[in-house]
């Protein structure tokens, strides 16, 4: 469920992250994608369809249809619940209006699954200035979620969310572009997973521990700051370096560093490679094993709130094709992306290992493979 709350947040951020080259509208374009995530006992796949169309060089509309088909036997599910399957469907609509060097954008996203419903709306304004060397974008999104619990018709709660963003892009030289992003996310409501439990030492239990439901604060505010630079290399290639800092009122402090390289080959191919490193400290109220039941006001054992590090190794290829029978397309590409991610936890233990004293189980880690196959057409 936390993942679903985050999905709702992603919806908010997705509408905020409309590319904002303020003085120009993006090209007419359609993308159809198959995505697949597999790792840690979880399989998620589905389609995504994104279409953009502009009118009179002043107006543009976009629509996105996205589906996650989830089959989960994650470590949480295996150790405290039963494997499940589920489907989440998301619809997004966006509109843009270009006036001089200003671009005004609005967006709306709806996401639904059996026990979670999320709606979000966003507005933003982007402005080119200083000889079009600088673009500033201000954005705001508001989200309204409803949380349900399967098998409990009496349970219903909500999450209210506000996202404030400032983006600055600066042309530094003929070959270098710099970016700065600030985003504040503030949430209020039921922020934990109604199915997830924490464990505590229990001498009366045969295993030495027992479980009780998680209890989270009902508010959370996080701030993220990212700086990035993209450099054009003399042999027609591009390299990008990015750093992101994150801190929130739950005590999570995160750092992300990402390096990527883009290399065209001939007139039709573009290859990409990237490496991403991420680390975070645990939330203040997180513990793998609490000393006793109701040890403190707030209790969490969600591995996404644990101390963790991840490494991503990714490659991609894009090939420009002429699609038969589609002469209305100016050009089209077939694209492949693959990422391998390693997740290591410093204070989340693998409870599938039994017969050892509580708190001495091995630390948990897993790897995931993320596949994207998509076709893009410009018309």
């Amino acid at each position, binding site marked *: 469920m936390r*993942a679903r709350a*985050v*999905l709702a*947040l*992603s919806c908010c*951020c*997705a509408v*905020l*992250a409309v*590319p*904002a*080259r303020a*003085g120009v509208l993006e090209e007419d374009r359609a*993308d159809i*994608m198959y*995505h697949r995530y597999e790792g840690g006992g979880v399989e998620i796949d589905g389609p*995504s369809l*994104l279409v953009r169309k502009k009118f009179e060089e002043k107006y543009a509309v976009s629509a*996105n249809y996205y589906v996650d088909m989830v089959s989960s036997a994650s470590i949480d599910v295996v150790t405290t619940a039963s494997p499940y399957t589920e489907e989440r469907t998301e619809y997004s609509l966006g509109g843009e209006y270009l006036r001089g060097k200003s671009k005004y954008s609005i967006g709306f996203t709806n996401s639904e699954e059996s026990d979670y419903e999320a709606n979000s709306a966003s507005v933003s304004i*982007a402005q080119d200035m200083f*000889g*079009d*060397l*600088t*673009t500033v*974008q201000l*954005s705001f999104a508001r989200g309204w979620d409803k949380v349900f619990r399967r098998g409990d018709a009496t349970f219903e709660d909500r999450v209210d969310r506000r996202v404030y*963003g400032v*983006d*600055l*892009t600066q*042309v530094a030289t*003929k*070959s270098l*572009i710099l970016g700065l*992003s*600030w*985003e504040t996310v503030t949430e209020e409501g039921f922020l934990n997973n109604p199915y997830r439990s924490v464990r505590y030492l229990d001498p009366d239990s045969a295993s030495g521990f027992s479980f009780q439901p998680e209890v989270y604060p009902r508010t959370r505010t*996080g701030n*993220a*700051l*990212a700086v*990035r630079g*993209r450099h*054009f290399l003399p042999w*027609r290639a*591009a390299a990008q370096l990015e750093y*992101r800092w*994150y801190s929130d009122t739950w005590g999570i402090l*995160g750092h992300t560093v990402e390096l990527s390289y883009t290399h*065209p080959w001939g007139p039709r191919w*573009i290859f990409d490679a990237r490496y991403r490193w991420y680390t*975070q400290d645990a*939330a203040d109220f997180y513990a793998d094993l609490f000393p006793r039941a109701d040890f403190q006001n707030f209790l969490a054992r969600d591995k996404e*709130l644990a101390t963790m590090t991840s490494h991503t190794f990714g490659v991609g290829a894009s090939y420009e094709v002429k699609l038969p029978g589609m002469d209305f397309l100016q050009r089209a590409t077939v*694209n492949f992306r693959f*990422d391998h991610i390693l*997740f290591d936890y410093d204070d989340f233990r693998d409870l599938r290992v039994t017969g050892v004293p509580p708190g001495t189980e091995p630390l948990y880690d897993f790897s995931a493979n993320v596949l994207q196959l*998509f076709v*893009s057409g410009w018309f």
Partner: protein
Amino acid sequence: MRNLRMVLWLAAALGAAGCGPIEPWVKPYERERLADPIMSWDRDPVSSSYVKHVYESREGSRGAMGGAGGGCGCN
């Protein structure tokens, strides 16, 4: 006092410079490299929004993952 006066003069000079028109140090005809599609922050939005979603579902950090603000000034 003399130092303070110098600092005030310097601040006033800098302030006056800030009020003047800013000359773009990269001219529009010098932005060919920046206009190349490989220089886009977000070449494939359908892919980048999915990747954000993958990370935000599995990590505690949220936000500022977008490359919003193209700003190559090449329109």
